[in-house]
């Protein structure tokens, strides 16, 4: 059997697999609307969704005004983090790359506290825009620093620049919150990654960026495949390596920036899901990207559902759940699953 037949066979199975994932995601999203820290019967949920129960009831408010936007945000943010992680791992050829090491989280946090202390900004709806700006700026800064010198932004220089910017932004944030209790209080809400307390305005605010970034990412598959062969080979194949890298970074900045701005830093999804996708589809980024796009929101929403039902009448933030459940899973992957190099 020639290798091209294997590839064709695989592609034959991967297409329907994607459809199956789509159905699973829809089911999980439905679960995320029906389950929560408040006990609401399925029939009440369905009536609320159909708009049959009038506006006044608390069941309607919780279902339509809280759980629906929360679920949609979970889908978009999950997809964005997974894809951003996959693109970043591909472009840096670093299997441990996630958006955190590109300075996204630290940049967003630094701008949130600056907005609070210097500009007196209050309220999540306003400061997510500062978080977004901070995330983008930090990523650009990392890219610019790494691009200095002859070889351009090589993976090693990117990792070093990322670490430096993260450290710098981190000290700025710490310096401010140590002397400003208000900033600390506001930051606390934002700094534990969570889907709670985000309603329609935040969803509609970040959705356009996330959708554009996700669509654009799907066009990167072939270029990332080329980079995976090594830069010289990619160049030999006629690829414009610098351009690919810049475009990939722009996509990561928009996706991770908007996701982090809306929900705070959510780790793990962007790091691990691309490995899961790679485990299923092999090294072809034309499949890894869409698989990451569907697998990540499934993981994120499931973790969020767990967080909402285990601590009633309160909730656990999804960031905490992912940390607790995610660490052993990650160790398992590394230990038994052969962590495939990007």
């Amino acid at each position, binding site marked *: 059997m020639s290798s091209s037949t294997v590839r064709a066979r695989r592609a034959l199975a991967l297409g329907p697999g994607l459809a199956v994932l789509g159905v699973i995601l829809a089911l999980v999203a439905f679960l995320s609307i029906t389950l*929560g*820290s*408040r006990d609401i019967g399925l029939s009440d949920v369905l009536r609320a969704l159909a708009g049959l129960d009038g506006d006044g009831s*608390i069941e309607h*408010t*919780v279902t339509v*005004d*809280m*759980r629906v936007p929360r679920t949609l945000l979970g889908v978009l943010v999950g997809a964005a983090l997974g894809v951003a992680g996959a693109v970043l791992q591909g472009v840096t050829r670093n299997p441990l790359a996630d958006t955190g090491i590109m300075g996204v989280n630290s940049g967003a946090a630094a701008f949130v506290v600056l907005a609070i202390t210097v500009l007196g900004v209050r*309220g*999540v709806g306003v400061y997510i825009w500062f978080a977004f700006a901070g995330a983008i700026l930090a990523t650009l800064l990392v890219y610019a620093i790494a691009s200095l010198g002859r070889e351009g932004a090589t993976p090693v220089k990117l990792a070093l620049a990322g670490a430096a910017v993260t450290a710098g932004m981190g000290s700025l944030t*710490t310096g401010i*919150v*140590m*002397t400003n*209790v208000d900033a*600390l*209080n506001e930051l*606390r*809400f934002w700094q*534990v990654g*969570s889907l*709670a*307390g985000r*309603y329609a305005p935040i969803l509609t605010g970040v959705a356009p960026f996330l959708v554009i970034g996700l669509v654009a990412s799907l066009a990167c598959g072939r270029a990332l495949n080329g980079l995976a062969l090594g830069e010289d080979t990619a160049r030999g194949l006629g690829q414009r390596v610098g351009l690919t890298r810049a475009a990939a970074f722009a996509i990561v900045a928009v996706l991770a920036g908007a996701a982090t701005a809306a929900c705070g830093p959510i780790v793990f999804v962007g790091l691990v899901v691309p490995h899961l996708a790679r485990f299923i589809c092999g090294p072809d980024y034309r499949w890894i990207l869409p698989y990451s796009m569907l697998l990540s929101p499934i993981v994120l929403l499931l973790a969020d559902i767990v967080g*909402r039902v285990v*601590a*009633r*009448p*309160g*909730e656990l*933030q999804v960031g905490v759940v992912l940390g607790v459940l995610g660490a052993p899973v990650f160790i398992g992957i590394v230990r038994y699953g052969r962590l495939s190099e990007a």
Partner: protein
Amino acid sequence: MRIWRPIVAAAALSLTLAACGSTDTPETTPTSAGPWQFTDGSGEVVKADKTPTRIIAHAGEAAALMSFGIKPVGVYADESVKTDPNLKGLDLTGIEILGEEWGKIDVEKAASLRPDLIVGDYWPAEKAHSGLEEGVDEKSKKLKELAPVVGVSQGKSIVDLAEGYEALAKSLGAKVDAPEIAASKKKFEDAVTAFKAAVATKPNLTVLAMSPADDKVYVANPEFAPELLDFQKWGLKVVNPDKPDPGFPYWENLSWENADKYQPDLILWDGRSYTDTANAEWGKKQPTWFAIKAAKANAVVSWPAYWLHTYGHFAAELDKLTTAIKAADENVGS
């Protein structure tokens, strides 16, 4: 993690209360130049050859001593002395400010004041005095090496606390029967009488102490809030939440989906975040806040959460509550 401590569920943890109640009332000796002794909240009897005169005190404790005319030489606070409710309106000229953040005290500056007494509340649950608790900078904790540390135990009642500091002030030479002090005490007693009378006219009124936050709603557990225990003692039905956070029992945490779990007739709103427009703002921001009928009816009043130390402050806060109770409708939540 340490950085969280002062703010986790609001400064509660740092400024406040402790589990076991203290029944020990501090004893005093007749005042003169000395020898001096005082029974600390921990039960230990602290002695000195001479009555201390150069005192360094934690913010609320300083306010308590100053209300009896004892002026400390230095003060350490948990926040800016401009916003600390204990110090508001007090003349701090001539007093060195040694710290304006929880857990951070300038011990070098403190040493230069040559103190002969450090005053901070004693926390039975943490077995430490204010400023020396777990989580405080190790450097700051050296404060205790400068002079003996005494304080009244944080327990089950603000009245115990106020009386304890009255006794301490007396041992330090304050004339606690001076007319303005007597007047302040009288004012407090009148405020309690008025509060009890107002509560008696509304036998069905229930209140809930709350602190809404962006990610959840906190419901206070009176067991760990001495002023709420005082209110209960005086007849007010402060709801006891049924599932306080086991790791941090000062509060029960409600997700916003469950914000309407309790339906009180009046909301006591954490004074650290209360403003006149806060209720309307939260109603706009959180879809379920107005599912609490009392919030919808704007039946909210500021609650002096976890900071009171003096008769004067307590009297002023009680008067506000009495007004709100008089105006409250005891059927809002039913």
